[in-house]
Each structure stands twice: as C-alpha cells, then as structure tokens.
C-alpha cells in the first residue's frame, strides 16, 4: 500500500471516480471526478489535529471498522491510510450539512489545510491501457434476516469479525460480544447467501478458508467452543486442506448442515442457532454468544455502470465478463481493458495478486508496442451514397459510428468488422471490407456451381 502511495510513476487519485470514457485501445480519454475532501491534500500533514477537534468526534459509524467503531466528521480512515490525509464527511459534518459549526477543526489545523469551499474537480487523462479492479462487497440480501443479521447485535459478518480480532480494531483485538463479554461459544455459518438460489447461486470461494482462519482466531482468543456449520468444505489451494485439517485438530467442531434460523434466547440473552446435522441426521440447537455469518461476495456497487463506460459486459451475477473463461481470463471484449481481482469473480488474495500481475503484464505488452495495427476488415461509408439516416449508428454494437457533417463515419479503431451496419444500411452505402455483398454473393453462387453435373449433397 505504502509503495503504491510513493511510487514515482503512480499518480494516486483517491476519492475519485471515472465518469466518462472515449477512445479505444491505445488511446482512451478518461474523465475522472475527484470528490471534494474539504482538505487541501498538498497542505495536510495527516497530523490528526482536526480529527481530535471535530465537534462530531466519535459520533459517526466508521466504515473501516465495519460499524463496530466510531469516527468523527473530520477523520482519517485508519492509521495506515494512503494517502495519510484527513477527509471531511459531507454527510455528517455540521457545517456542510447545516451551515453552522464552530469549525474547531479549522482552528486546530496549523497547516491551514481545511477548505469548506472546495469543489469537485474533473481530471482528464489519456491512457493506452486500462485495468479494472473494483473488487467486491459482502451481500446484504434480505434473506439474511432469518439469521438475525441486522436484528441482533451479536450476529456479525466476516469483516466485522476481522475488525474485532485486529489489534488495531475497536476492541484492541479482543473478541468479545457487543456488551463486552468473552464468548463461550462462537458459531460460524457458511454459505450465507452463496450457493443459494434465493440469493446468489455461485460459491463465494473464500469463505471456507477465512471461516477456518477465524475459527482459529476465535479458539485462540476466547478459549471457548467454536462451531462451523457448513454445506461442503472447499479448501482447494496450496496448503489450504492442511490448514483445514489443522483446525479440526485444534478442536473446531464442524457440523455438516445448513442452519434454519437464529433466534434470541430470552432466558439467558444468548442466541439459539437451530439447524440439522445432516451427517448424524439429527436436529441441533446450539446456544451461542456470537454468531458469524460468512456472507456471499457480490460485485462492487456501480460496477455495471462502470462496465458500460468501458464497453465491458457483466455476467449473470454482475461480475465483469472475461473474454474467454479459460484462455483469456484477464482480457475483456474491449481491447486494451483488462480485469484483476474480485471484480471478475470471487477469489482469495493469492489468486487476486496472480491475476493482477497477469493484467499488468497484458497492459505492459500493449504499452510496449508503441503502435497498434488496426485490422483493415472494417466498415467504410461511401459518403456519396449515405443519406445520413443514422440506422447504422443505432445498429452498431460498438458505438463506432458517428454522424459527421450529416453523414455516417466509422471510427476504424472502434470498429470490430462485424458488419451489422452493412446489413442495416438501406442505401447500401457501407462497405464491409473483406465481407462485401459481392463477395458473399459470389460465395453463395459458388456453393451451387457444381450443379447439375452432380447431385446435392
């Protein structure tokens, strides 16, 4: 992380989003919107004085702590944030929401970096290659309510568990219930929203393993009982099966079965986890202090829209579609746009890093060419015949045709030579090079040439 922040060839544009894309492989023009941080990033030293001074300090749920910790309106996301700069949250800052605040942050900032009049900025970039790496989110599918998610304090998700376990987290690394008790029993529920036709059909792939990891941490830190309800354990990966075996030896209790519901036990304040042990064929009810849901991974919010900007489709589950499931797993159907990480499919860190290096290699290969050859089997408009009706513009799946001075014009770098415009042009004003009407008709004539000497077939 730090390396990316200080690499001389990397310009970091945080708090920013891509809003417009033009061009084609080798020549993309990209417009990026940088949201106002209300902090001058050049001046801010990351000292944290504004964070301390903020009148709204510790009154907002921290995204980084997954809602288990608090922050202020002026905050630094976490201790190793890159860039290590403060940001003022426009949704909670008193001044920005209500226009009234004593602005203690401004007074506290010796670098005079806080500027409430900062506006969003647009930055135009020219690039030859693009890597999409927008990652994932955990599902919040409505069916999760049956496991008490969002209803009971001590039903948490995997990321919340990570924050509890982290020494830098809200509890200093102590795994405790919301009311501060060390749990006697922690129950993990696998495949929540994954492999579930009502939510997400696919396997999220990482949960069996991080469930095992978290079981280990729970055992180590609480000394209590740790249960895992699973459907199938999937621990393919180097050293993974061994890790799972080790967890079984450490005393993690694996129960094969899916939990039906999690309900509170009014008598002792515990949660009752009810399900079936399908190996023993019997009903089980486990009183738990902490229930961890290993929830499905889904594509990041907004990936579909981002994909549209780059002409990259998403698959039925919303992940970016690779050009070929086996042979081109990091390419997309848009030349020059590559994929890395969980935005393409759920995967763990080793696979993410491998794919990211693959995408980088593809981008480097492209950039190192300096020049690209554009296949000449593209469409070309005969301006004399074109009536400017625009049918071809509507028909073109690649947005490669524009109207220039009232007539259609093909951008050959975007044209993939599919010929849809040729088929659609009523005036026959478009030549599909290498697939002209004449060529196709000659080919058809050839098919029937052998007659009548021989009989078909």
């Amino acid at each position, binding site marked *: 992380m730090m390396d990316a922040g200080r690499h001389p060839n990397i310009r970091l544009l945080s708090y920013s989003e891509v809003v417009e894309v033009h061009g084609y492989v080798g020549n993309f023009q990209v417009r990026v919107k940088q949201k106002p941080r209300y902090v001058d990033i050049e001046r801010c030293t990351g000292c944290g004085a504004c964070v301390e001074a903020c009148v709204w300090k510790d009154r907002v749920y921290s995204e980084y702590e997954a809602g288990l910790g608090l922050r202020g309106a002026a905050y630094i996301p976490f201790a190793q944030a890159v860039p290590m700069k403060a940001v003022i949250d426009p949704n909670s800052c008193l001044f920005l929401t209500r226009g009234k605040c004593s602005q203690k942050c401004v007074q506290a900032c010796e670098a005079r970096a806080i500027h409430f009049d900062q506006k969003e900025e647009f930055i135009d970039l020219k690039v030859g290659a693009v890597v999409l790496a927008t990652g994932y989110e955990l599902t919040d599918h409505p069916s999760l309510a049956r496991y008490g998610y969002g209803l009971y304090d001590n039903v948490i998700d995997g990321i919340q568990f990570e924050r509890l376990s982290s020494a830098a987290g809200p509890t200093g690394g102590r795994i405790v219930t919301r009311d501060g008790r060390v749990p006697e029993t922690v129950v993990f529920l696998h495949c929540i929203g994954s492999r579930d036709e009502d939510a997400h059909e696919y396997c999220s792939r990482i949960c069996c393993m991080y469930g095992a990891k978290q079981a280990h941490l729970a055992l180590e830190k609480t000394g209590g009982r740790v249960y895992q309800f699973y459907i199938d354990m999937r621990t393919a990966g180097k050293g993974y099966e061994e890790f799972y075996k080790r967890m079984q030896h450490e005393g993690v209790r694996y129960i094969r079965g899916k939990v039906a519901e999690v309900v509170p036990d009014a008598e002792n304040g515990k949660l009752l986890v009810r399900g079936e042990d399908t190996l023993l064929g019997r009903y089980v009810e486990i009183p738990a202090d902490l229930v961890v849901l290993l929830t499905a991974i889904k594509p990041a919010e907004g990936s579909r829209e981002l994909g549209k900007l780059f002409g990259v489709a998403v698959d039925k589950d919303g992940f970016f579609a690779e050009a070929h499931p086996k042979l081109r797993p990091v390419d997309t159907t848009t030349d020059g746009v590559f994929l890395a990480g969980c935005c393409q499919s759920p995967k763990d860190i080793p696979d993410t890093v491998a794919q990211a290096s693959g995408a980088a290699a593809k981008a480097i290969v492209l950039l190192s060419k300096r020049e690209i050859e554009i296949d000449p089997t593209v469409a070309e408009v005969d301006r004399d015949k074109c009536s400017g009706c625009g049918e071809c513009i509507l028909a073109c799946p690649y947005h490669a045709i524009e109207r220039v001075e009232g007539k259609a014009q093909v951008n050959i770098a975007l044209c993939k030579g599919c*010929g849809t415009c*040729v*088929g659609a042009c009523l005036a026959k004003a478009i030549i*599909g090079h290498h*697939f002209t*009407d004449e060529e*196709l008709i000659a080919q*058809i*004539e050839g*098919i029937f040439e052998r007659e009548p000497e021989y009989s078909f077939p």
Partner: protein
Amino acid sequence: MTTTPEPFEPRIVGFLCNWCSYAGADAAGTSRLKYAPNLRIVRVMCSGRVSPELVVRTFREGADGVMVLG
C-alpha cells in the same frame, strides 16, 4: 418429365457468426458429432451482417433453406 422418385435432399445454406455459431460448428467437429451433409456454411463476422436481401438472394441461387445463426 421423368418421374424417377429420388429422395428429397434439401440444399441448406447457413450464415454463421464467427464468434458463436461458427465456433459452435467447429466444436461439433472437434467433438465428432454427426449431422446431415446438406448444409453449406458461410462464415460472417456477426449474424447482424446478414441482410434480408442476402437471404432472398440465397434462395434465388437455389437454396431450399437458409439458416442465420447468431
């Protein structure tokens, strides 16, 4: 006219998209699937290339059936 009853052998022309159905026809070959030899395939880069006139023209040239597969 002669009336020797010959079995009807339809002459079918198929316009197949290079990226999907043509690749599919290749896959049928790779898997050694068998189908009737009455089909002659014309490769196009997209089934969208095939205009109605081309279909009519193919019938006129003598086809008994035309398939456009995308």
